[in-house]
């Protein structure tokens, strides 16, 4: 069991607006969101001595520090595997703070992922330089599988075949996200809810995935400030205590193409993360009234609900029916609208929503949230968090 539980907290969150065309540089988005998070925490750039971000982040720590006039940085680290990282950057920051390597660590992710380089456009132009990473794509890109949706669709098809989940089950996830986004002024799809019929009629992207099964592409930045729980108690915001943070790579795990295990619709790395989180926080699914479930593609939300034990294997298709994952249901998920409805910031905006649910300040606030789960990208080496109220 981890020695980290309860030692650290998220004391500040900050973001830019979420859009399809920010009109400014990615570095500016990073600097704006980091400054906003520090303001939220009642701290200044001079207080920062640690920076953690994604391996895919294009804004160097040096440039973010220089833009905001930070002083000495004693810890900086990055986490690989794209959307799998949101819980992991918090874990890195928490470990640095808990061990005294740094006192104030900022995690950030900022990009023009819609107006700039779009992930959804595919990796067909990836080089042939003979690295192991490039060689890994040799089994997919020459056959026309070049986008995240296409990689995901292969796993989704098998999951649906094995579990009996239908388009309607995927639609329930999309409808919940868009309902929550509809009442979140920060969401791209503010005031634009959808119905199951809208979902079922949306065009194919990569069968079995339709347009409304896929997250957006967004421009924006999101930052988080991690300090010790003790220090957080002296800062302006109600602390979101990091009760557990965990990462996972299991034997069959791959970057979106975990096609070679016995049961490809079972997310072994997410189950590994979930098991660690429950053990470290000494909590169970019954203790969680709302959760942030990484929603790049709707079928992966179903699989993750099973990984975390919110329902049994193959039962997520029934669990999500009848508004059960919407406000007022047993487990409202992605109350900010998720990446389907609010914005796609590689899961970092989901961590911020988890913090707001603990603070009691979410636009779609669930009553009495003592603890919440936040997951990282599914179908990749991943991570997760349990955040909780102090005391």
């Amino acid at each position: 069991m981890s020695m980290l539980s309860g030692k650290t907290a998220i004391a500040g969150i900050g973001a830019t607006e979420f859009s399809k065309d920010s009109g400014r540089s990615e570095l500016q988005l990073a600097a704006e969101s980091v400054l906003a998070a520090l303001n939220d925490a009642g701290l200044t750039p001079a207080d920062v001595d640690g920076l953690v971000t994604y391996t895919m982040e294009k804004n160097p720590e040096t440039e973010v520090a220089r833009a905001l006039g930070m002083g000495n940085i004693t810890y900086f680290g990055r986490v690989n595997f794209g959307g799998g990282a949101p819980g992991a950057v918090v874990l890195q920051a928490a470990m640095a703070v808990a061990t005294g390597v740094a006192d104030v660590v900022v995690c950030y992710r900022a990009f023009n992922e819609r107006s700039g380089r779009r992930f959804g456009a595919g990796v067909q132009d990836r080089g042939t330089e003979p690295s192991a990473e490039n060689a890994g794509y040799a089994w997919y890109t020459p056959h026309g599988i070049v986008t995240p949706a296409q990689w995901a669709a292969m796993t989704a098809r098998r999951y649906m075949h094995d579990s009996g989940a239908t388009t309607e089950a995927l639609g329930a996830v999309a409808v919940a996200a868009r309902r929550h986004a509809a009442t979140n002024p920060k969401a791209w799809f503010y005031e634009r809810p959808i119905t199951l019929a809208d979902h079922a009629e949306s065009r194919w992207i990569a069968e079995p995935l339709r347009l409304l099964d896929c997250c957006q592409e967004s421009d924006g930045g999101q930052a988080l400030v991690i300090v010790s729980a003790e220090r957080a108690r002296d800062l302006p915001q109600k602390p979101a205590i990091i009760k557990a943070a965990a990462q996972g790579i299991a034997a069959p795990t791959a970057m979106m193409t975990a096609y070679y295990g016995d049961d490809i619709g079972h997310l072994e790395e997410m189950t590994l993360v979930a098991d660690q989180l429950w053990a470290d926080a000494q909590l169970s699914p019954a203790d969680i009234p709302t959760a942030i479930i990484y929603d790049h593609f709707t079928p992966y939300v179903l699989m993750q609900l099973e990984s975390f034990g919110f329902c049994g294997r193959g039962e997520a298709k029934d669990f999500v029916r009848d508004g059960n994952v919407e406000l007022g249901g047993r487990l409202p998920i992605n109350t900010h609208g998720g990446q389907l409805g609010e914005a796609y910031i590689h899961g970092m905006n989901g961590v911020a929503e988890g913090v707001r649910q603990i603070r009691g300040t979410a636009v779609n606030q669930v009553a009495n949230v003592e603890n919440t789960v936040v997951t990282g990208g599914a179908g990749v080496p991943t991570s997760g968090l349990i955040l909780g109220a102090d005391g």
Partner: protein
Amino acid sequence: MSQDEHPGLTREQLDPFAGKSCGPSRQSRDPIAPSDIRSWIDAIGDTNPIYVDDDASMATGRSSVIAPPAMLQVWSMAGLGGTSKSTTQDPRKELFALLDDAGFTSVVATNCEQEYLGDAVPGDWITTSEVIESVSDVKDTGLGRGHFITTVMSFTASPDPLGDGELIGRQRWRLFRFAPKNRGSGGQAGGDSDRPPRPRPAINRDNAFFFEGTLAGELRIQKCDSCGTLRHPPSPACGACQSFDWSTVAMSGRGTIHSFVVNHHPQVPAFDYPLVVALVDLEEGVRFVAEMPDTDREDVAIGLPVEVRYRKQEDDLVMPHFVLAEGSSQ
């Protein structure tokens, strides 16, 4: 469009070619020498000891080392700079001329299957003869409209250059002679040459064997020399036993669909859409992803049997794809 331009040859025109011999048989220039075997297995990376070690071979019930079966066709090849003696008796000349006249001017090798019936050993002379097995009716494929031509080479081995020899293997070779499809809709001009190339695989020391295999018409998968576990995607070491020693084995190319996607958007210009791509359980027990460019999305389903085919993508690159196994279409 091409249907009117290229109606195809009739059975009356094609049937006389079936069963015809492609000219006189051809003998290896030299008897099989151990040094040739060594050069080949070094180049391929085949570490099976029965090709070099009499004791290892005898342990398998043989009387001495044998030549690698996959070298079947090597022995009677004409050699670099040599020309295989093209004879006026070769009926393929006449067949190809007929196909050219009918508009089927492009050619691609689609299949190569080898069947091993006996061993060849150092000192043997190898003799090859080839017959036309069949010429198909005109078929429409992703490449265009054309006829498949299948020939069968038979290989015999004999210690006596003048002897009759024992049949040691056959190779079935299928060509597709076709009229390339015009790409683009609405009868727009523009052939395949306008099309950007497909993404090339990044080839490195760990996976190069696979693409050497497809050039030879084989789907080669890594096999651990120590514990025998097959592995894909390739890796320099065996996760089951940590051995860095490995060989490759040619898969049968048959399997069943474990999952599949149908890509609609975005459309990369190098491909036709909707594009079916399948994750296939190969019958040897590993999974493999490849597209099914000639398969209609309505015909594909989890559990259906498929077979591998090959397509030349660039001069130095042949890529595998799957087709539904015969008799499995719905």
